[in-house]
């Protein structure tokens, strides 16, 4: 705030000083984010742009690329197996997101209501641990566990009189098994988010609802879930983006089979590019997958306007 006692030249010097400080702070800020921007540019934006460019060419890695125009995109819409892989991906992604959110919320509510502070820390760590394990290692290990003939799961089920469950050798079994494994590994992330969000629900609101006679279920559905809805939206978006890029588990455990039952969009992309050497077409598939993820994420945000409650 300026004072009438300070002369005009003095105010000008102070303004100049403030501008310099602001410039220095801005420069410092840019320097701080420069490295991150460099990484994002080199490893995210540049590959996306390169893929976009490549999608208009035919390229087998070995010969020089040739211009293909929109042919790769036109081919996509008439390529039955690749379209099917998108269908498989969407179905599995929906199952993963629904299960991951439901289970994560259920566990979070349970731990938040019942567990002590130590219990909360313990369960948070326990449920988060699978996420820290290498996906490839988990997939290999699960492949052994779920083997129809020699797997440990079927061994114990056999003791209960259930024999030969085709976990990975039937189309539906393989899809369900992979969904369960992904949910098992990812649910910890959702769980941790929900526990934190539930802990942040204001106690005065909870006390008020309790005084008004709301029971635990009503408090959950009418108070807690609306209050943590931004976190649910965030978890849903992240889970969906991850699920649409599903690759490791089906690739390692079933190689996309039986048949094409677990051939996801990213496996299709890999096979088209690295096995069939059609990198232009593979890039077109990647771009279409990116657009699909962007579109669905956009729809999620639009739909969320009506149900997400921001305090």
């Amino acid at each position, binding site marked *: 705030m300026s004072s009438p006692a300070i002369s005009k030249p003095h105010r000008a010097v102070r303004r100049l*000083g403030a501008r310099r*400080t602001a410039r*220095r*702070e801005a*420069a*410092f800020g840019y*320097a*701080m984010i*420069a*490295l991150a921007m*460099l990484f994002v540019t080199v490893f995210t934006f540049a590959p996306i742009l390169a893929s976009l460019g490549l999608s208009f060419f035919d390229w*087998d*890695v*070995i*010969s020089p690329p040739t211009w293909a125009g929109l042919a790769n995109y036109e081919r996509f819409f008439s390529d039955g197996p690749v379209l099917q892989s998108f269908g498989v991906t969407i179905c599995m992604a929906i199952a993963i997101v629904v299960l991951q959110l439901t289970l994560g919320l259920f566990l979070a509510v349970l731990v938040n209501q019942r567990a002590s502070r130590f219990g909360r820390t313990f369960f948070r760590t326990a449920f988060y641990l699978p996420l820290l394990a290498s996906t490839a290692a988990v997939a290999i290990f699960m492949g*052994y566990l779920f*083997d*129809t*003939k*020699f797997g440990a799961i079927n061994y114990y089920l056999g003791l209960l009189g259930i024999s030969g469950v*085709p976990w*990975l*050798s*039937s*189309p539906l079994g393989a899809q369900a098994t992979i969904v369960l494994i992904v949910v098992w590994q990812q649910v910890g992330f959702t769980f941790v988010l929900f526990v934190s969000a539930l802990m942040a629900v204001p106690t005065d609101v909870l006390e008020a609802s309790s005084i008004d006679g709301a029971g635990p279920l009503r408090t959950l559905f009418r108070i807690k879930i609306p209050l943590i809805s931004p976190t649910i939206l965030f978890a849903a978006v992240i889970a969906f983006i991850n699920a649409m890029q599903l690759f490791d588990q089906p690739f390692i455990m*079933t*190689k*996309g*089979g*039986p*048949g*094409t*039952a677990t*051939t996801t969009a990213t496996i299709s992309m890999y*096979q088209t590019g*690295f*096995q*069939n*050497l059609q*990198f232009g077409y593979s890039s077109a598939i990647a771009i279409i997958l990116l657009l699909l993820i962007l579109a669905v994420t956009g729809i999620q945000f639009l739909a969320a306007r009506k149900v997400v409650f921001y305090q």
Partner: protein
Amino acid sequence: MARDFGPVLGRRDLLRLGGYGLASAALVGMGASLTGCAPSAGGGGATSGTLTMLYFGDQKAATTLQNALQPKVKKIDKDLNLKITAINGTDWNDFLAKVLTLIAAGQAPDIVSVATEGLQLMAGKKLIMPLDDYVTKDMSTLKSGYFDDIHPALIEAMMVDGHLYNMPDSFNAGSMFFNNDVLQKAGAAAPATGWTIDDFHSTAEKISKVGGDILPFDWVVRLWGSWTSFLYANGGNLLEEGKYDGGDWLWGKAYDSGDASVAGRKGGWKWGAPTANSAASVEALQYVIDLQKAGFSPSPDVGGGGTLQGLFSSARIGMTIGGGFWAGGLHNAGMKDGSFDVQAFPTWKGNKSLFGTGGYSIFQSSQKKDAAWEVIKMMIEPESFDIMFPGNVTTPGRKSLMTAERYKTTGPKNWSVFYDQLDGSVPISAPSYYNALATSLNQRTTEAISSGNAKAALDAMQSDLEKVAKGN
């Protein structure tokens, strides 16, 4: 004048300088680490004196091999170095995909290990060069020192359109391994020479009666040694078999004129129209599906063979398809010599069996082709074989190396079938679109297994292959 803007180092300046310093250090560090990741000038093949080679395996083995070969390389030229880069993969299909990625990244080597799976693709795309001139130049020494010792089937499998693109030193033919402990428990006799598919089936029936978690047979979904072994024995193939003309320049000079094993050899295998849904094919695939339905085999893995090796070595599988690579593989898995043996694949409509071979090629882009040729000649010498492949992990292409002494510690006793089976065998059908073929084979085979309908899946495979073949 007041020193309001003098060189006093304030908190913000300190932070700013620190930030710049950190950012610079990170950039320098990143640059240094990326430089470290990239091949050095010497390793990229641009600097004189260093030959680069891609090797199928892990880097530890590659480095061991590099160190072991280095003294031999120095004998060729004291200024020459060999840098071997390993490429890990579950099978040759995987290896080939990664080699192509490296090529795309501009890291083409001078020498590359190539197996049957990748030969026609690499030759067709002119990535590797014909070795005809080098072979002709050194024919006098190669005839007695190499060709006389190598089965011509291996050489012919490495030819395309009359040209030789690769110097093979190893192979694996699809034979039938059996676990002696399991056979003993089942009261079944060891398969005898000339056994048939009926003998195989009756042995499987006997093993199935042992019970517990022991199964008669297992296999892996892949092109080599899969249900395709049954297909070959049934007189079929996934593609029409044919041969390129030419090759006289080699057969007439490299082998003696009266050599019966050279009769009918031409300029390499020419794979024709797809025949994936032929009667022989449907019958062969349906046969292995029915084995599984009957409880004679588990659901097979796709690619690799690690699980199968574990099951076989722990005596939970009675019989399976394997090649000479399993001698070392089973020994390393803890199986004692005598606890397993091998027999040629059983005869069905005929005794045609399959094999895959591997050797060394020179990249067309190499700037040191002469040196690469000299190193390849060194690598295919008999003395180099155990350096290249320590521990019986593949079958030597040289007959002179197929000795009782070699299999003394690892077994199997009936090791001679590995080489004998090459007579009348055909290489795996690996055209220039091998990768697409392998992908379709894997998908359609697992589809057939889960549906139980071989015909429908093979019709789909036929359609897949026709589409791909049309584009090639």
